[in-house]
């Protein structure tokens, strides 16, 4: 035993002491509540282990809710990624004047945070039965929007609304990644004989892939967990999973606490799987990184 080791010991402990508040907070208000849900999903009312709660999920109604939730999240994430990417690419690489960037990024910051209840109001006021766009289409163009089968309280309606925060979020995240594409890469590809599309397929998209993938996973989780917008928009007429869970917690329906746990656990599983796929794909696509 070396004498110098003794005084180092408390210093080491002291180091760990510095992060105790953070880990305590994370444990109490992030980890334990989540664990509570996971465990609750497998616990029967009398405290025993059971799969009955999860089995309760496999009714046509609840399965349909998960399906529509996943579909909306996928649709709004895919469209958010594609459209956001196009706008970000237009501004960073498309030869638009540079002054557009600053305002666009600021606006994206605002719009990506303008979610929830007011966003629903905004779309109701615009595309609702008395909304500005509905009226303008009717009075000026003779188009009755609602006669075409459009309904803001529907799959496409909700997707359209979600895009209002999905697209800006994509722009915010992907713009720095696009800035990271060196001009020399494109020029080197061109002078070696590649066409523009070849450059994108073989060089730019593979380089951007991890960032695109991460953003997609984030957008998916973002849409999947969104409660406020959907409730303010549809009341409870569109039964997506978060609305179902919300009602369940409020005690409005179902009246089965075990099923609430199972619903919430199902949400964790979906976002968890989405992120596991992301991590796996990312690890595969990042071999060329440090």
């Amino acid at each position, binding site marked *: 035993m070396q004498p110098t080791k003794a005084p180092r010991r408390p210093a080491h402990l002291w180091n760990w002491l510095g992060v105790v508040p953070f880990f305590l907070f*994370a444990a109490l208000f992030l980890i334990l509540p989540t664990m509570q849900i996971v465990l609750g999903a497998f616990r029967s009312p009398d405290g025993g282990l059971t799969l009955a709660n999860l089995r309760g999920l496999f009714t046509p109604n609840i399965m349909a809710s998960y399906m529509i939730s996943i579909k909306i999240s996928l649709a709004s994430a895919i469209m958010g990624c594609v459209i956001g990417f196009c706008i970000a690419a237009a501004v960073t690489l498309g030869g*638009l004047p540079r002054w557009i960037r600053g305002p666009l990024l600021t606006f994206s910051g605002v719009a990506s945070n303008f979610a929830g209840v007011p966003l629903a109001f905004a779309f109701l006021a615009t595309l609702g039965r008395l909304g500005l766009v509905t009226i303008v289409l009717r009075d000026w163009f003779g188009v009755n929007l609602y006669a075409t089968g459009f309904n803001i309280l529907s799959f496409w309606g909700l997707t359209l609304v979600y895009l209002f925060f999905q697209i800006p979020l994509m722009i915010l995240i992907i713009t720095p990644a696009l800035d990271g594409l060196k001009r020399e890469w494109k020029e080197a590809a061109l002078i070696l004989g590649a066409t523009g599309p070849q450059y994108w397929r073989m060089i730019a998209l593979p380089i951007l892939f991890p960032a695109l993938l991460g953003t997609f996973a984030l957008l998916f989780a973002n849409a999947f967990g969104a409660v406020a917008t959907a409730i*303010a928009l549809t009341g409870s007429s569109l039964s997506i999973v978060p609305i179902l869970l919300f009602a369940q917690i409020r005690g409005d329906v179902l009246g089965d606490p075990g099923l609430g746990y199972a619903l919430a656990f199902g949400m964790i599983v979906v976002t968890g799987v989405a992120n596991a796929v992301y991590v796996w794909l990312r690890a595969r696509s990042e071999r060329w990184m440090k």
Partner: protein
Amino acid sequence: MNRVWSWLALGVGLLYFFLPLLGTLEFSLRKRKGEYSLDAYTAVFADPAFRATLGYSVGMALLTIVFGVLLVVPTAYWVRLKLPRLRPWVEFITLLPLVIPAIVIVFGYIRLYNTSSFLPLTGSASGTNLLLMFGYATLALPYMYRAVDTGLRTIDIGTLTEAAQSLGAGWVTILGRIILPNVLVAVLSGAFLTFAIVIGEFTLAALLNRPAFGPYMQLLGANKAYEPAALAVIAFAITWACMGLIQLVTRFSNHTRVNA
């Protein structure tokens, strides 16, 4: 050719984003039959519940910011200085709230901190307020941590700390008078973002039954026609103000740095 497509992409984007804002603004002015007026806004501002709930949410936002700064700045600093190996773990934890839906987290709170639990926070109003504040801090954690950690990356905290220590400063002094001022811009950015998130938050407040601005808006939306549009305009203005302030502090700090 390329440029035409770029303008097209931008134009379609602008149309999509400005129509709802324009529609909301127009709708909010329609309360009086046959002419535009500010009646909806007058009605909203005259509603005592509006002031009460907005005041409550502003208070909660400020508390959340204070707590978040006290939690995140020392942690991020300490991890960078003394426990760099721990960084991936801390980062992972701070990103979890982006993955686990808020409604799941609050559901966990309700079950974990009910009146018969080891920490019966939901048993009293003040306890529930505290729980709500912790919940908000959790939601804001990814943004706050990333902002502060990015800010810390730009300064050499090791050298600054040793310099301060050699002059006899203690930890509180180092954090409060050396580190915090140096990452103030990052902290303020995180703070304004937190404010924007908390002020309109619905799920946590509704499920914990607190009289916050988010549930108030939702209630109004279910019962009134034109006032919700006015509320949306106000909420948008608040969000815009928060983002504008972030821009402002960032730009201001750049100026002082250039002049220095």
